[in-house]
């Protein structure tokens, strides 16, 4: 009965929304839609529509007893319309008759036939927007995804093949180790499980694992082969492997081109040699861990010393296995309340996820369910229509969530998912609810049975999933049409720093158009990913090639874009560090501090869970300080790098030497020098700012003017009349500050011999270049990639 009431409610709601749409849409919308590429009619959909829909909605979709389907409330999105048809059509108790392919085909037909919508290939262009060219797109993608400049190989592909080469070049970027780190960062912005890593909380993850279930959690404390002064290093490495287990699952799936649906459906977890010991787990491959995991190279060991102060107590390298090597594993050993190990359900059953989104006796996993809907089903539970009681209090119903229609409208969707978590306690332990223990306080009374989207999980009989309800839920989510959309949304948020657009019945026509355009493109990207074995890289590439990443200029006013279209995003602190390393060959030590990362808009996944997108005074001051320090640190050093016609290893100054100055000593301009300086400036604009300018452009001339001014005034400072003038105190010097000189080779760290050191700047050219680099590093384009 309640279900019928709910359906009626939905019908009324949709009917109201249809009316609203009709009032809001005008001819402009159609013309905008015509901008979309060629329409392809789904023939199966047409058959279904004519057989099951046309009687109520008209052969041409323009109306009948069921009203028009043109510009209906769900017509902005294929997935939305498909889901709606699957759940509610045909009416009159026949809702089961058009689901899955039928619903999707019908939706495609409605959108193509009555809305001129295409389901062919992802659009890369929106009218009114100019996109970056292939070269610019590659550069931006490499920086966004891998925090580095394109490699020579990638660049060559694009230079030689243009747009056609972009695809292959992006494939290479998506193989970069940095990309997988970035992907984990995208997911952490949603999961926030990095709260438990050592830099935020030294024992954060280890503390969450029950020693009643896993007696070897702190295995490194009892291992006689480990020296006492090394135990904290093992602890840090183990802790972070445990903390990042959910994110490592994402990385593993991407690295191996496996379906991203396994994020919620995998029957294994990702462990390294160290965390495997804490769980006493077994590798899925059945191999001996000592044989299966890669031995650590000395370089990898040194990287750990760099990463953890806990690993610097000893100068020796001692970690036997590569901490970054993760393999699929299962927990098959007995725990306190399970004799057969744990039924894994992707990251849903991860101790980290379950603790990051905990529950209480009275919350009954509803917070977890709400999170699942938000992150994996692209559904905001709170946005589900329904009339909540005026004061949100109902003391008359014995169980408002079941009996009060206002509560039920949300809870009947949310609670079955909440019930699916019933075997997993507030601290993430697996204790079946039939176990006679107070450690799991679950009661099935007063809450709906486990399930999803109207499908109830079988709890008895031969196909019972009672003991692995969460695995059942994960499998259901993986096949739900909303899952692919949620993946695309997570990626979109990570790449652009903004959420996807949403439209409601109160949206204006312009808002609806922008939403419609975005939904069409994102839905197609999601579908492409699904069609290619749910390979998440397909979706990443789709987004990179979409106008939401490539947009660079507005050429005409259009409703197709909204105020946030484009992906100009303030670099996160970690990204900025990697960019500095990539373009300058050195990072900024001030930004290593966790506190300073927060000041620069970063997050710690604990107290600070959102990034700052807009620059404030502190961040501007930090950028300027960075620009001054980093230009000082890297300019003279770059002149140490080899530069010959045969082999040019300069990162910043491939076209000039320290004696390339604008004028000779008699004051005559040196045209070839000026030309070389401008050429180098042009190069720096591209390298540091991704700004494609010509050597005679206004911007290059402006930067040259700064170079020339600092060079000219600097030389004046070095003249005798300045040196003898008391006004010039402290006394200008031909020597560089010890902070800015080049005493070691920037790449090897080897101390330079006297003649190779650069500690003098007799003609002020190095300091003029330092000024140029500081000017460019403090630019908007340097921190907004």
């Amino acid at each position, binding site marked *: 009965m309640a279900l019928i009431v709910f359906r009626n409610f939905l019908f009324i709601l949709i009917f109201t929304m249809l009316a609203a749409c009709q009032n809001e849409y005008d001819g402009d919308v159609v013309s905008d839609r015509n901008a979309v590429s060629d329409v392809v009619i789904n023939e199966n959909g047409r058959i279904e529509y004519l057989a099951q829909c046309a009687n109520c909605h008209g052969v041409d979709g323009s109306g009948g007893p069921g009203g028009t389907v043109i510009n209906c409330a769900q017509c902005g999105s294929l997935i939305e319309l498909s889901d709606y048809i699957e759940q509610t059509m045909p009416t009159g108790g026949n809702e089961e008759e058009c689901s899955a392919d039928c619903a999707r085909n019908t939706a495609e037909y409605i959108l193509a036939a009555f809305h001129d919508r295409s389901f062919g290939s992802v659009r890369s262009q929106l009218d009114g927007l100019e996109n970056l060219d292939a070269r610019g797109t590659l550069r931006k993608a490499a920086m966004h995804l891998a925090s580095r400049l394109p490699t020579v190989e990638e660049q060559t592909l694009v230079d030689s093949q243009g747009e056609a080469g972009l695809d292959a070049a992006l494939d290479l970027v998506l193989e970069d180790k940095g990309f997988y780190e970035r992907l984990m960062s995208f997911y952490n912005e949603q999961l926030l499980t990095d709260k438990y890593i050592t830099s935020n909380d030294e024992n954060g993850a280890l503390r969450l694992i029950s020693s009643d279930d896993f007696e070897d959690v702190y295995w490194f404390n009892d291992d006689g082969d480990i020296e006492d002064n090394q135990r904290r290093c093992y602890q840090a490495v183990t802790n972070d492997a445990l903390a990042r287990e959910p994110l490592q699952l994402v990385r593993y799936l991407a690295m191996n081109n496996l379906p991203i649906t396994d994020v919620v459906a995998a029957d294994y977890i990702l462990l390294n040699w160290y965390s495997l010991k804490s769980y006493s787990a077994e590798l899925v491959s059945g191999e001996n861990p000592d044989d299966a995991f890669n031995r650590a190279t000395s370089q990898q060991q040194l990287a750990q010393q760099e990463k953890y102060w806990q690993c610097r107590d000893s100068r020796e390298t001692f970690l036997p296995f590569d901490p970054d090597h993760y393999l699929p594993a299962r927990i098959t050993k007995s725990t306190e309340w399970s004799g057969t190990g744990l039924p894994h359900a992707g990251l849903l059953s991860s101790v980290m996820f379950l603790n990051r989104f905990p529950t209480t006796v009275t919350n009954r996993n509803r917070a977890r369910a709400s999170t699942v809907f938000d992150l994996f089903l692209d559904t905001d539970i709170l946005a589900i229509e329904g009339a909540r009681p005026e004061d949100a209090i109902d003391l008359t119903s014995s169980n408002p969530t079941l009996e009060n229609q206002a509560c039920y409208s949300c809870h009947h969707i949310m609670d079955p998912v909440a019930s699916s978590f019933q075997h997993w306690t507030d601290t993430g332990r697996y204790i079946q609810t039939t176990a006679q223990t107070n450690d799991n306080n679950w009661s099935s009374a007063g809450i709906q049975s486990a399930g999803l989207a109207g499908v109830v999980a079988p709890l008895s009989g031969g196909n019972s999933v009672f003991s692995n309800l969460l695995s059942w839920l994960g499998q259901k989510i993986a096949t739900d049409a909303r899952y692919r959309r949620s993946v695309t949304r997570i990626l979109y948020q990570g790449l652009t720093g903004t959420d996807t657009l949403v439209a409601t019945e109160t949206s204006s026509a312009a808002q609806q158009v922008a939403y419609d355009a975005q939904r069409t493109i994102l839905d197609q990207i999601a579908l492409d990913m699904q069609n290619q074995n749910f390979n998440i890289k397909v979706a990443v590439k789709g987004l990179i090639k979409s106008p939401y990443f490539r947009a660079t200029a507005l050429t005409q006013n259009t409703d197709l874009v909204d105020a946030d279209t484009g992906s100009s995003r303030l670099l996160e602190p970690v990204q900025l560090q990697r960019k500095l390393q990539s373009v300058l060959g050195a990072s900024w030590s001030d930004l290593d501090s966790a506190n300073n990362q927060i000041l620069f808009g970063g997050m710690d996944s604990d107290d600070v869970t959102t990034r700052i997108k*807009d620059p404030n005074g502190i961040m501007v001051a930090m950028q300027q300080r960075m620009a001054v320090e980093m230009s000082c640190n890297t300019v003279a050093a770059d002149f140490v790098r080899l530069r010959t016609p045969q082999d040019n290893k300069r990162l910043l100054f491939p076209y000039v030497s320290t004696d390339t100055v604008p004028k000779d000593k008699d004051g005559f301009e040196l045209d070839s020098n000026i030309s070389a300086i401008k050429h180098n400036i042009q190069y720096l604009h591209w390298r540091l700012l991704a700004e494609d300018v010509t050597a005679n452009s206004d911007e290059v001339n402006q930067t040259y003017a700064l170079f020339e001014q600092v060079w000219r005034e600097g030389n004046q400072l070095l003249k005798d009349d300045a040196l003898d003038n008391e006004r010039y105190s402290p006394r200008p010097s031909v020597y560089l500050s010890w902070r800015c000189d080049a005493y070691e080779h920037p790449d090897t760290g080897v101390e330079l011999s006297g003649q190779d050191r650069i500690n003098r700047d007799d003609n002020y050219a190095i300091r003029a270049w330092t000024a140029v680099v500081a000017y460019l590093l403090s630019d908007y384009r340097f921190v907004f990639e």
Partner: protein
Amino acid sequence: MKRRDFLQKLLASGFINALPFQMHRAYGAQTVPHFFVMVNAGGGWDPTHFCDPKGLNQAYPDRAGSFNGYDGSVNRVALDENKRIGDIQWSAIPDAFGDTEHDRIENQFDNLFQSYGSRMTVINGLDTGTNNHATGNRYIWSGQSDMGYPSFAALYAGATAPSLPMSFISNGGYDETAGLVARARANNANYLSELADSNYQDSTNGYFYRNQDSSVDVYQSILSAQRQRLVRQQTQETLPLRRKQLAQLLTVREEDANLGAMKSQVDLINENLNLNDHMNNRNRGFKTQAQVAAAAFSSGLSAAVMLNSGGFDTHGNHDVSQTRSLGDLFEGVDYLLQCLSYLGIAHKTTVVMGSDFGRTPYYNSGQGKDHWPVSSMMVLHDSTKNTGGKVFGATSEQFRALAVNSSTGLHDEAGIILTPAHVHKELRVFAGIDQAPATLGFPISKQVLSLF
């Protein structure tokens, strides 16, 4: 819309004529007339545990016996008539602690109300209409339960001084800016002095040459070139998103971020208001937030701050956890007020305390309290005000919001149910920003009461 509001996006975009940062520069002088500190008690506090106590009233007899000894009362400590100042009655401490801790927490409670009660307005019986954390926190701090409205602190900073370097500092809680002002994080001042002078190398030298009186200063040439380039970029940019970002950058860069002065103020506070000696230093994180807030105001860098403290979502063992968290919070707020007073700005600073919602007027089987939509806020007026201990609004013995007279705030069946929207309507008038251009984009259609 869910998640994001188009209005907010349009306001924050380059589509409309005026960019928000620029739009309000002309409206508000950069000398901020008044400061606001919003104190967020994250998780949902229990007003019956401090400013709206009910005592052992057995209001829910059908809930009695849900655990040993529970009689169905809203609280498990009797009202203490000695804990009263003006109309404000505050709660006694439940018998859930050892003597030492009990005394400390009681001291934390009593100290706040006894020291500041005479300039306090307690707003009781606020109906948030939700049991959801995100919605409740948003409603309490923006006056709007739907998404997109700015947090009051952001609105005030955006309306009065959007270009100050740290006009709006947020340490958590609902801190949506709606594009009106940049949000800054600043929970301690240790690093800020290094940022005060980008060109500082040592006491004698800059990285780029400058003489002692800075009449010769190479770095100024770089700054000048940067400024000119930024203007060129903004003029030439067509993409709305980048136009917005460039406008924000230009606005912030034009202000002189006197971060050195702020660090000096924090140092002064540390020298004179010792964290370690202050009531056992239980909530140090909150206190360092408070230091930075007071110093940022005093040095002209900030207009409004959100401070954040957690530990109030007490679904289990409520009496111990809730009371302890409240005590820590009150101690922290007292420290904040001391900082403001020490720096000479207590006379122009208003502190507003609030939380997501309230907690049930009965206990669950885990001796915890779950979510309840009725809540309270507390306003600690600037030091020139004397309310005599004012209460506006009322709740029943069952801790339900009662209709109140819009002038007196007393129970009146013909009156209105208070909501956070009423409080924000009043706050905007009180702050003098109700007619500011920034505010007009986020209307609240409630009548003005006599809250303040």
